[in-house]
């Protein structure tokens, strides 16, 4: 069997854990000479996959190439991992991460200044999840640690590089659009909170009102949220496959 470079690259990307950079491929196949060449070959592989209706595609992210399944298969695959679906970041986590991503390297105090609240627990969680790391120390009194994002951060959000971060809104855009902000607030809950005294009603009232939907759908199971989405996925699938 004569192996051609296209096949070797395909095998390498398949076998590698995480995104594989063109640079690394060139180390293994120096005869390919340029990374541009390598990218061309990878594009050819991906085109072939697409033409063949393969459920797999090759995406570029975190400075490398990685094979992943196409979106429509997500609902099936998620069933393989039902029990341990990766937990999404909380709103707090995302906010803090956004500040760190756009302003890195940044110290904890600076993050807190922007958010107006303490960042203690969040920073730990983000480090623990390998989304941020210590990048150095600020040359300032106390030499505080500076934080920045990791390569895994790019992988997690499917970004090629930090340049691919969504662009920050200009001030006039910010003023216009409240939609995002509203979206992020749980409006139903707000109605409940605000009434008379900006946020009070008895527990029975709140719980009672909130429970109705949950009670019918998720009887005794615990992670009711995840289960719900699982059920939805299931429904989608039936719809799609028929």
């Amino acid at each position, binding site marked *: 069997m004569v192996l051609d470079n296209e096949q070797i690259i395909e095998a390498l990307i398949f076998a590698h854990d995480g995104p594989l950079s063109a640079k690394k491929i060139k180390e293994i196949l120096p005869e390919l000479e340029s990374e541009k060449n390598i990218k061309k070959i990878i594009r050819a592989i991906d085109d072939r996959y697409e033409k063949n209706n393969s459920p797999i595609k090759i995406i570029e992210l975190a400075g490398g190439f990685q094979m992943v399944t*196409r979106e429509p298969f997500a609902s099936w695959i998620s069933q393989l991992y039902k029990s341990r679906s990766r937990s999404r970041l909380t709103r707090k986590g995302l906010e803090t991460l956004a*500040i760190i991503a756009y302003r890195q390297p940044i110290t904890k105090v600076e993050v807190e200044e922007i958010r*107006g609240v303490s960042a203690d627990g969040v920073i730990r969680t983000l480090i623990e999840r390998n989304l941020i790391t210590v990048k150095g120390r600020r040359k300032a009194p106390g030499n505080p640690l500076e934080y920045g994002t990791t390569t895994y951060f790019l992988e997690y959000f499917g*970004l090629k590089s930090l340049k691919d971060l969504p662009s920050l809104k200009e001030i006039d855009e910010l003023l216009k659009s409240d939609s995002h902000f509203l979206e992020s607030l749980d409006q139903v809950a707000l109605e409940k909170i605000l009434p008379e*005294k900006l946020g009070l009603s008895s527990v029975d009232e709140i*719980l009672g009102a909130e429970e109705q939907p949950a009670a019918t759908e998720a009887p*005794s199971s615990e992670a009711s949220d995840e289960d719900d989405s699982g059920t939805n996925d299931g429904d989608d699938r039936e719809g799609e496959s028929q």
Partner: protein
Amino acid sequence: MLYRVKLDIFEGPFDLLLFLIRKNEVDIYDIPIAQISEQFLAYIETMQMLDLDVAGDFIEMCAILISIKARYLLPKPESENEDEYDDPRMELVERLLEYKKYKEASIEMQDLEEQRSRLYSRAYFDYIPKTEEISDEAYLDNVNIFDLMMALKSALDNMPKVTEHQVELIRVTVEEQSDWILRKLTGKPMILFRELMQTMESKMEIIVTFIALLELMKKRLITVHQSENFDDIRIKPAVIIEEE
């Protein structure tokens, strides 16, 4: 009567302020400071009325709002012309907009997270031959600085001790106690908090069970009622759990 406030709605004072500005439909560059700070204070007061530990961050913001309000009461220096007059609200507005900028970005990042989570990569590749002896210990291939820090803590914590050291083991976990409570509720319309507590052996166990109870409330698997102060608490399943 017990109260529950969904405080987690507001991530911080800026969140609350932005919300009030929107709710009152006012211009962010022309915040009616008296009105907004009044509402902000009302919110804080209700929190305090509930004996809630009001986060220092919110109180700090109260102080800022009050000081801005106070500066309005001072007469404007006559000599300066309008252009040079700096609005005491400007710094706050700038901070608000700065915060809002990242908040909006974080919502776009959430979309990216969602999209990315629908792409699955190959999870497993059995290249490395299993011939080498494998110990019970997990192999750590991609360790980060957090792992390194935890390793140091663990090494120092487990350092052979010269001094006597008493460690109290917590024998129950929140998960275990949640399951236990749900089992207790199986086939029953209700149980009393007192009944649950009767079997407890230690304070720690009680606390863990109590936390489990709160977790279940949060997950809406149970509801909790109390007729009056110090009356026994009635715990009901959100739906009657069938006996198997």
